[in-house]
């Protein structure tokens, strides 16, 4: 497949979910030649074998340094690959680094053909980060609820309160100490462990 049709894109990402989200987005946008590499062993050899036009890699991936060697061992590469860092396009670089993704392209691929790929990449990475964030928050909310329920139980038992009264006591203490209810509940659990 020549670069004048759909460019061949390699996604290097150890997170299968994020890679799937990105891959799906690229396919929807009409980029059909997408390959995902999740295994970092012999990364460079696999990339040479695939011979992509564009390589996308997440910034949490230590193997990013491996890709930098592509600029050096030109004997082994059929086409030189340059990083997508156009000095005039600082905003785009900043956005991709903020989103946690970096792109490498073959030399000569036109900038207007890369722009939609990178934009899509940035938005999908940001969407994934938001999803992850929501998941983390939901998890911690669930944890908080468990801790609060246990703290209520302790207060009910020790102070002879009803469930509602125990909750009011937790909430008013949290407000007075400018802390979260979850934190107050956790300190009650810790204290009760210590006093056992």
């Amino acid at each position, binding site marked *: 497949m020549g670069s004048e049709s759909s460019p061949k894109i390699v996604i290097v990402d150890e997170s299968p979910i994020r890679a799937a989200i990105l891959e799906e987005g690229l396919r929807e946008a009409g980029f059909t030649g997408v390959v995902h590499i999740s295994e970092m062993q012999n990364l460079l050899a696999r990339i040479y074998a695939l011979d992509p036009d564009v390589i996308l890699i997440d910034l949490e991936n230590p193997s990013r*340094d491996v890709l*930098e*060697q592509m600029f*050096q061992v030109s004997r082994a590469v059929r086409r030189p690959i340059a990083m997508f860092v156009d000095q005039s396009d600082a905003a785009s*670089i900043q956005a991709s680094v903020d989103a946690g993704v*970096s792109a490498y392209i073959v030399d000569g691929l036109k900038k207007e053909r890369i722009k939609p790929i990178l934009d899509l990449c940035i938005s999908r990475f940001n969407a994934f980060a938001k999803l992850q964030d929501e998941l983390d928050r939901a998890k911690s909310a669930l944890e908080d609820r468990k801790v609060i329920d246990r703290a209520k139980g302790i207060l009910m038992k020790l102070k002879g309160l009803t469930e509602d009264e125990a909750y009011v006591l937790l909430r008013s203490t949290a407000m007075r100490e400018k802390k979260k209810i979850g934190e107050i509940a956790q300190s009650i659990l810790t204290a009760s462990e210590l006093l056992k």
Partner: protein
Amino acid sequence: MTGPLRIGFIPLVDAAALIVAVDKGFAAAEGLDVTLVREVSWSNVRDKLNIGLFDAAHLLAPVAIASSLGLGHVKVPIVASFNLGLNGNAITVSPALHAAIMAEIDGDPFDPMVTALALSRVVAARRNSGTEPLTFGMTFPFSTHNYQLRFWMAAGGVDPDEDVHMVVLPPPYMVDSLASGQVDAFCVGAPWNSVAVDLGVGHILHFVSDILVRAAEKVLAVRQNWSEKNPQVLAALIRAASRAAEFIEQPENRAEAARMLARPERIGVDADVILRTLDGRLKISPDGTMRESSRYLLVGREGAARPEPAQAAWLYAQMVRWGQAAISPEALRIAEGAFRPDLYDSALGLPGGDADPPAFGSVGAFAGPVFDPADITGYLASFEVFRRAP
């Protein structure tokens, strides 16, 4: 207090002066509010420094030069006004390669010329028997590790581009790659050599101080335009790092420094491994053989923290030797200009001038003529193995 600073680092022992400057309070005492950001790749550190997400960074000395020259990447002038460490790397080989080299050795195994000649015989034997060439791992194309491996093997007649494979590997993957046979040897900083020996999958063949007496390793790097806009902040940062380096070099403080560095959010390895590195007392063989060196890693002592332009010139000469850079007086001037002893001296109230004693300005390589920055062409012509720039 100045505005908050974000400084990137890679979890390696040679980030010690930077980490201790922050965690021991030397930076705060200078009125600096520093957040250290742990990174996973040199590419990330370089890019985040270049685009301004970091104010400063723990950086490979050659990357500061390459970035200033625009080699392999976008050109952003970088200045190194504090040298975080001299030396500190080691070459570790698999048990099989160790045995092969020892079978060919003719002389002192700590003499790098002796091992390089033995390596060349091993390489020749493999070629004659049709065995796959050896693979050497290093950390980055523009790294001291790359140049140190190349300098060493080329002295014995091994061409690093023709006779063996040189591959980049992230430091945390080095040990696994050696164990799985993906590489036969590697050159990396602490703690990874010790980790390989402790796991019984590698022998430390050389400390890089066997190859070069004084090799600038990591620098505290900032963008040149940032240094011009924030001279007072930079001076305060240099003073904080300098106090930290002095602290680390006091033997009675090393255990405390090692504990500080060992924390999971800093280097995240056993404090004892870090202490052995700072003390230059390393187990070099799985059988327990120890080796001590007063030159293993220098953090500030013997003038180690002062960035010497001659070091930058030597690194630039390696880029020329291996075809990464073209030779030009202009490029040499830029490379030397990336190392700024003047900023270091003025921050610390030192008189300035040339390296004192002059030996502090030289690399002291085990092979080749004495390096003269004024005659890189002549220097490189004395080596049989070299590349020409494409």
